């Protein structure tokens, strides 16, 4: 009962081996243990043998603790930091690409909203715009809400990436 009530959302940063099958191990862990996964993004680091992953998940504090431990247990996972749990401040960003209707009144409205969110129109056609907006979750969500009346034909989100503020950083050892 208490487990259902106290659900928190955490952002976890990982350094993992950059080799085939690692994503499958991590995705498999989340599915086999029935953990939530809100977003997952991954990319190479300065060291091409290492990838950095950002996972946004949610659960009871005990479950979140388990998630971190279970991730650490994977041999191909080199380092895990629950950014939310550290209490340190961190910057997180997500990018969204939206294909919106851009005919008639919607054309000017879409441009205005893009401007307000300091987004970019990266593709233009007589009928549509492709808009790129970067920001934290709240900003992305707000932009989507405001663009809805224009008519969103397609929406792609990258998932969150995050990094700690200040000089602290996630290192291999």
């Amino acid at each position, binding site marked *: 009962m208490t487990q259902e009530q106290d659900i928190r959302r955490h952002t976890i940063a990982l350094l993992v081996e950059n080799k085939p*099958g690692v994503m*499958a191990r991590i995705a498999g862990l989340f599915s086999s243990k029935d953990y939530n996964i809100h977003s997952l993004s991954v990319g190479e680091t300065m060291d091409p043998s290492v990838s950095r992953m950002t996972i946004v998940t949610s659960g009871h504090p*005990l479950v979140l603790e388990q998630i971190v431990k279970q991730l650490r247990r994977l*041999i191909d996972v080199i380092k895990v930091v629950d950014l939310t749990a550290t209490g340190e401040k961190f910057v997180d960003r997500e990018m969204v690409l939206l294909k919106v209707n851009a005919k008639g009144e919607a054309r000017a409205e879409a441009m205005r909203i893009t401007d307000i969110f300091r987004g970019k129109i990266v593709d233009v056609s007589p009928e549509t715009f492709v808009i790129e907006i970067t920001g934290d979750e709240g900003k992305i969500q707000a932009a989507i809400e405001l663009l809805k009346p224009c008519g969103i034909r397609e929406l792609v989100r990258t998932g969150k990436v995050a990094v700690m503020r200040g000089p602290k950083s996630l290192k291999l050892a």
Partner: protein
Amino acid sequence: MAKLKGYQIFWECLLKEGVDLIFGYPGGAVINLYDEMVNYPQIRHILTRHEQGAIHAADGYARSTGRPGVAIVTSGPGATNTVTGIATAYMDSSPLVVFTGQVPTALIGNDAFQEADIVGITRPCTKHNFLVKSTQELARIIREAFYIATTGRPGPVLVDMPKDVIVGEAEFEYPEKVHIRGYHPSTRGHPQQVRKAAQLIAKAKRPLIYAGGGIIISSAHKELRGLAELTHTPVSLTLMGLGGFPGDHPLFLGMLGMHGTYVANMAITHCDLIIAIGARFDDRVTGKLDAFAPKARDERAGGLGIVHVDVDPTSISKNVEVNVPIVGDAKNILSQMLEVLKTMDVDWEGQHSGWLAQLKEWDSQHPLQYSYSEKVIKPQYVIEKLYEVTQGEAIVTTEVGQNQMWAALFYRYKRPRQFITSGGLGTMGFGFPAAIGAQLGNPDALVIDIAGDGSFQMNIQELATVVQYNIPVKVVILNNGYLGMVRQWQELFFDRKYSQTDISVQPDFVKVAEAYGIKGYRLEDPKDVEPLLKSLVKMKEAVIVDVVVDREECVFPMVPAGAAVSNMLLDKPTTEKNGEELKRLLPLNFPS
């Protein structure tokens, strides 16, 4: 540096790892390995009759010796047949290295003949697995596989080798050291945590040690005994922990949990401190979680909580929140703890005498018992007599179900690695091949598989293996013609509706033995049991004893699934009132 073929590198690596025994089954993808094997007479290969048998045998070898079990099978069905065995080893933290053949790298993903994505299939049931991409990396991967399988919390590791990797060529260099940047198992406990634990132990009035398979894996049995004896603390073991503390020790309460003893389950319910060591609070141990160890977990009532020693951080606070977690190897941590405890000025005996007296009283109220019959053989009687005639010295493997629980309760294990059973996964068909592995790892020991008629038939084909290699295991079948444990549930909780559990249509096991060229006996009269078992332990060859037992005997005590462990059924409900009582015990989410 000399260039070697992949199949040569493979065997060279096994030699470097000190492997002298492997289990396997050949096929197309590994035929070159088998071809090369004849040049490595130092390594003995046991050809089982099914790949599942090979894995369980390797597992039995590993559990009985503490050394990694090694198996080799071909691609596709050879590989998929290992999955149950691998999952069995994974659940019980048994070190295995399983080598599978694979179709050539160029054909992977092509639905080639005998292709299966065994790395994908076994990802959730191995500690780690590898697909070897080039002959170059074969030696390093084999080195890492053995290292990962045997260190930290041990477990099975699978190495998938495509045929072109096996026949390819590379310079052979066996890495001296292993460096895996994402794998650093901790060994010693944090001194501050150890001190904290010691302080709680010194404070406790009603402490209980709850120890599991970790004691056996880390060979911490002497330290465990030291801790119990120094502090006058009673010990209860999990199924996997049996043998980790002497079964006849005055501080031993028996197994706890679903089929635990009355005194052990009362102890965990009433203790004020749990010292959990190498155990993982499995649902079969805790029963209903909310009602588990209520006194220890209630701080307001003076509960001191739970100290948990485990090498695997994920085992800690997984099911039950722990107050003092200590991550590391049980043997190290217990000796650290003993050092601290020895410096403390505590009258252990005086402090715990009331508690020990209470436990004694509970035990005498409801000791482990069964009713003997002169007409029909009681399965418990068979185990009791086996214990007597073997003087408690045999290595016992079990199948899964009633036979397993009776073997756990009525045979008292003296030392680690003496009781070998599939605890976590509960794999029927495990015991017989595991006995083969245990016998090969302990050639001079008396190895007995305590079997059920259902389980034994699940890997009965390994009789040929036993005959081919003269492996003198003894199979004692407690034959009730039922899938006994399921039938027991049906009797108790499903109005005796024995749906699909009657397996009395079965082979004549004596004739089966004879068909394979070994001896078989059938026992039907209680008075024949002891004399036959006495001669059995002296026989130098494999034997099957088919013991026809009371068909409807049940395992007691029993905690209904999902109920609190203090709610034990101690006998069959014989009256209406008992039946009502039973219904009251059953939780809503039953069965689970």
